């Protein structure tokens, strides 16, 4: 008997909910053969604002969780990712990747997430320090989460790129708004679904899919956003983002990696990469008390 295929609708992930775009707009995701894989919500300016508000609201629960717990949650996400490996592989293949390459990317992504999970309770020891001062004081410099981080994820590698940027921001205790371009949209939605069942607090990660350009100004200009990291943006888009972010002391990082650069664990899991997502606080404490 013939059956009408049920095609998945990719939705946004905002504040733990899965809404369609406020604008009602969608776009069609096709595979290499021109067949419709899914319809996906096209995020609007207002969705971007909602996502930032949700991230700000979700920040304390994630930032203030113990580093150990954050590590456990990220490790849990890696487990969920592994168990849905076939689905991710298929999604990457739909995006044009070969089967072997897609499998390798999923495996690398799981490993990357485990690595980042491990960093959660170790990064402080590596990039924090006890400073020698002239006086009867202890003096510590410790890294803290910046706040709300917006990650403009690359179209390729869709999964590994998003895992690396979102995972690094999460490992350092930030709340995230991930913006995923059309080509990687369904992979982004799937990753949202993985995180949603991994005990990530509501709003700590949010996912917007669609066109990046219209979201640069509203996200860059929202003063609640502390850090923006982008990958794969053109020169004009990067300028737009920098200009929008210029009202206030906020960071804009451009990730230079392309292609196989993303596979380099030494670079992508380096504490100096994670350092882009933290602020340093220095504390004085009387010694001998």
């Amino acid at each position, binding site marked *: 008997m013939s059956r009408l295929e049920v095609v998945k609708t990719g939705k946004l992930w905002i504040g733990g909910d899965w809404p369609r775009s406020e604008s009602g707009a969608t776009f069609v995701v096709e595979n290499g053969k021109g067949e419709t894989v899914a319809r996906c919500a096209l995020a609007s300016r207002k969705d971007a*604002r909602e996502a*930032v508000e949700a991230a*700000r609201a979700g920040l304390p629960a994630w930032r203030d969780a113990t580093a150990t717990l954050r590590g456990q949650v990220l490790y849990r996400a890696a487990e969920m990712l592994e168990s849905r490996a076939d689905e991710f592989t298929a999604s990457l293949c739909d995006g044009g990747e070969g089967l072997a390459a897609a499998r390798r990317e999923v495996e690398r992504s799981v490993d990357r997430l485990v690595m980042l999970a491990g960093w959660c309770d170790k990064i402080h020891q590596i990039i924090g320090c006890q400073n020698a001062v002239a006086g009867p004081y202890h003096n510590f410099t410790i890294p803290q989460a910046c706040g709300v981080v917006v990650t403009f994820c690359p179209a390729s590698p869709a999964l590994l790129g998003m895992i690396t940027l979102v995972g690094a921001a999460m490992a350092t205790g930030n709340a995230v708004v991930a913006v995923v371009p059309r080509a990687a949209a369904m992979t982004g939605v799937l990753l949202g679904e993985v995180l949603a069942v991994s005990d990530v607090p509501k709003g700590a990660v949010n996912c917007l899919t669609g066109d990046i350009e219209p979201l640069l*100004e*509203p996200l860059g*200009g*929202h*003063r*609640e956003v502390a850090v923006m990291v982008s990958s794969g943006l053109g020169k004009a888009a990067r300028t737009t983002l920098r200009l*929008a972010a210029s*009202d*206030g002391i906020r960071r804009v990082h451009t990730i230079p990696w392309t292609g196989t650069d993303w596979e380099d664990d030494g670079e992508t899991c380096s504490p100096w990469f994670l350092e882009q997502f933290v602020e340093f606080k220095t504390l004085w404490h009387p010694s001998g008390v």
Partner: protein
Amino acid sequence: MHRPVDAVMLARRAASFTRRSIKADSKRAGLRLAVSMLDLTTLEGADSPELARALCRKAIQPIPQPIDPPVPSVAAVCVYPRLVPVVREALLGTDVKTASVATSFPSGQVPIDTRLAETEAALAAGADEIDMVISRGAFLAGRFDEVAAEVRAVKDVCGDAHLKVILETGELGTPDNIRRCADLVIEAATQGADVPDGAVFVKTSTGKVSPAATMPSVLLLLEAVRDHFRATGVRIGVKPAGGIRKSKAALHLLVMVRETVGPDWLCPQLFRIGASSLLDDLARQLLWTSRGHYAAMHDVAVT
């Protein structure tokens, strides 16, 4: 006379006010109007004089950043009686009024003499406006005369000071009860003497009980006020309070006022909104409308 309420149509009518599209200039005007109608409130056991002073500074100048046209001051600062002298001093020389809760806020569960004495103390300390609570227990037990008598007694003590009567709609149970209670309170507070427009307010909630100022409960108060105006020509004020945190909710209220009692009520003399964090959201929205990007909470929040 008791007017029965159709609860289903009440809910539908109240919901209909949330479906207006208010954009651009109307939105800007609405946000400013909402700021000017605010009773900026703090009613916590941990309130300190410093916190009250900070709140007053915010009440006088809601947004630290200069925007054009300027944002008005709020209508009043509402505190417990102990902090009235602090607030009064901090607001000296401004149009912002000092409001105090009294009569054993929020429960009202003490003898009437004590409640009247508290009202007198708040007035002696310099309160311009008194927010009283009614005995919900007496009302729910059907002792309407007792409720009317206490409202009357507090009104007498208030003299020229404005009186806002808190019904605590969340505890009254049904729309019928809310309407009956509103009629009862308005009748009692305006009995006998000539009451100037806006000298008496009906207020939904203390903010300590949920649900608080829901759209249907505010609509009931507005309808009671409208019917009283049609019968007597006296304008009673309305003050929703509790749970109003977003600018959008404030704009919905303004639409409801405009379409229920008319434009006369769209002023701080006849309509107030009791809230605390709402001001931060209004400020963020106003900054957005004037600057084109969203402010962070730490840009506007003082307390």
